[in-house]
């Protein structure tokens, strides 16, 4: 049975979880974006060997569940001496996972720039790096924002996977309340509402950006 009082009485507790969710999202997203850009560029311009290595990484990550990656980093890596505290472990796993998706976002954005643009840059005597930095990447910036915002919204939801390693994010807090009050319905509905409050503006922002780019 849905009891609003349970949600309101435990609101600070839930919001503390939401704060964990949000900070984990932001930290992971920053690392994923930087890494994704680098991986994407290496994939496109790194030559045959680096191109193949990054391709394997991208496909491997896209083909396995994010949860598996979190479990590997938090539970399996310590067995070989790589011990990460909970928050960094969660952030690293999510960043490694999302960097692969974001690399593809950057790749398709760069490929959408007409070939004449790099030809014009080369015809002025620029090398590959100069052409990328001054001509290609500035033009991709507007095109990557909408899909990046989408990834951000997806990441907000995917951080809930860290409940599996008992990290006290929004979902885990809701679970705790459920166990304490013997009412699972109310805290989960409360968590859903808070997730929506976080994701909806981001998705709306992405849609607006898309319209602007067109």
């Amino acid at each position, binding site marked *: 049975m849905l009891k609003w009082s349970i949600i309101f009485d435990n609101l600070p507790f839930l919001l503390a979880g939401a704060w964990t969710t949000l900070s984990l999202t932001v930290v992971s997203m920053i690392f994923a974006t930087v890494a994704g850009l680098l991986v994407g560029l290496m994939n496109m311009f790194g030559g045959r060997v680096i191109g193949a290595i990054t391709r394997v990484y991208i496909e491997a990550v896209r083909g396995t569940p994010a949860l598996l990656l979190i479990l590997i980093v938090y539970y399996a890596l310590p067995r070989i001496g790589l011990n990460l505290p909970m928050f960094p472990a969660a952030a690293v796993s999510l960043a490694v996972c999302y960097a692969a998706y974001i690399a593809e976002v950057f790749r398709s954005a760069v490929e959408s720039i007409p070939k004449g643009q790099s*030809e014009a840059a080369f*015809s*002025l*005597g620029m*090398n590959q790096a100069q052409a990328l930095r*001054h001509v290609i990447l500035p*033009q991709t910036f507007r095109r990557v924002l909408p899909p990046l915002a989408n990834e951000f919204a997806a990441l907000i939801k995917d951080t809930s996977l860290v409940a599996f390693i008992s990290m006290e994010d929004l979902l885990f807090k809701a679970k705790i309340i459920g166990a304490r009050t013997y009412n699972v319905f109310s805290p989960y509905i409360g968590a859903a509402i808070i997730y929506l409050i976080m994701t909806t503006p981001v998705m709306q922002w992405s849609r607006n950006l898309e319209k602007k780019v067109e």
Partner: protein
Amino acid sequence: MAGDMMMSQGKLLVVDDVHKSFGSLEVIKGVSFDMDCKERLVLMGPSGSGKSTLVRCINWIEPPSAGRITFDGKLVESGKYDIRRLREDIGMVFQQFNVFPHLTALQNVALGPLVVKKTTRKEAEAEAMELLAKVGLAHRADYKPGQMSGGEQQRVAIARALAMHPKLMLFDEPTSSIDVELIHEVLDVMVKLADEGMTMIVVTHEMGFAKEVADRVIFMDQGLIIESGSPSRVFEHPQQERTLSFLSKVLLA
């Protein structure tokens, strides 16, 4: 051999038996010609004759599959450094303009010197402003390409190429994507450049321009040079059937 060396002395550009294939399709089948400083060459021919590809081979935007290109006395080799230097010395104007849409006209023109020649921003922008004035676009300095007509964009592209102080300018069908009533804006700028002594190779079907400006017209078909000579000779007394049939089509168009 010694004779060859003598011949290429003083030549700005020597194209020697250049071939270019895309996969199994050979687009250029052994083209040779040379040109002096200040010479103006017009390249004509039906579409698919390889004239654009030939021009793109000269600054290595399309690396030739075989043959030798000597520019300014130096054999161009596929080592990266040489190609980059070569491109600094050869300006290129494209059919689709290829101006940089995220930059203003002024920034478009200043970018090459800033990035490649490491000129100071102040100097680069001052010269860019002069070049924009030269192509009649001083009043568009702060406009972005999206706010300009095709003729204006192409003139920005010409100014952008000139900013590198090239020894040779390549024009690859510079007026083919421009509204008919604006073509003269671009041609006027090109005539002005020719009058100032710029060495240029122009791929175009503009007969009037060729007659007024060209020292030599080269006519290509199916990847080969089939005829070349002064505009009056090629236009009025073509030796080849294919030249004649092409010219009659262009004149009717």
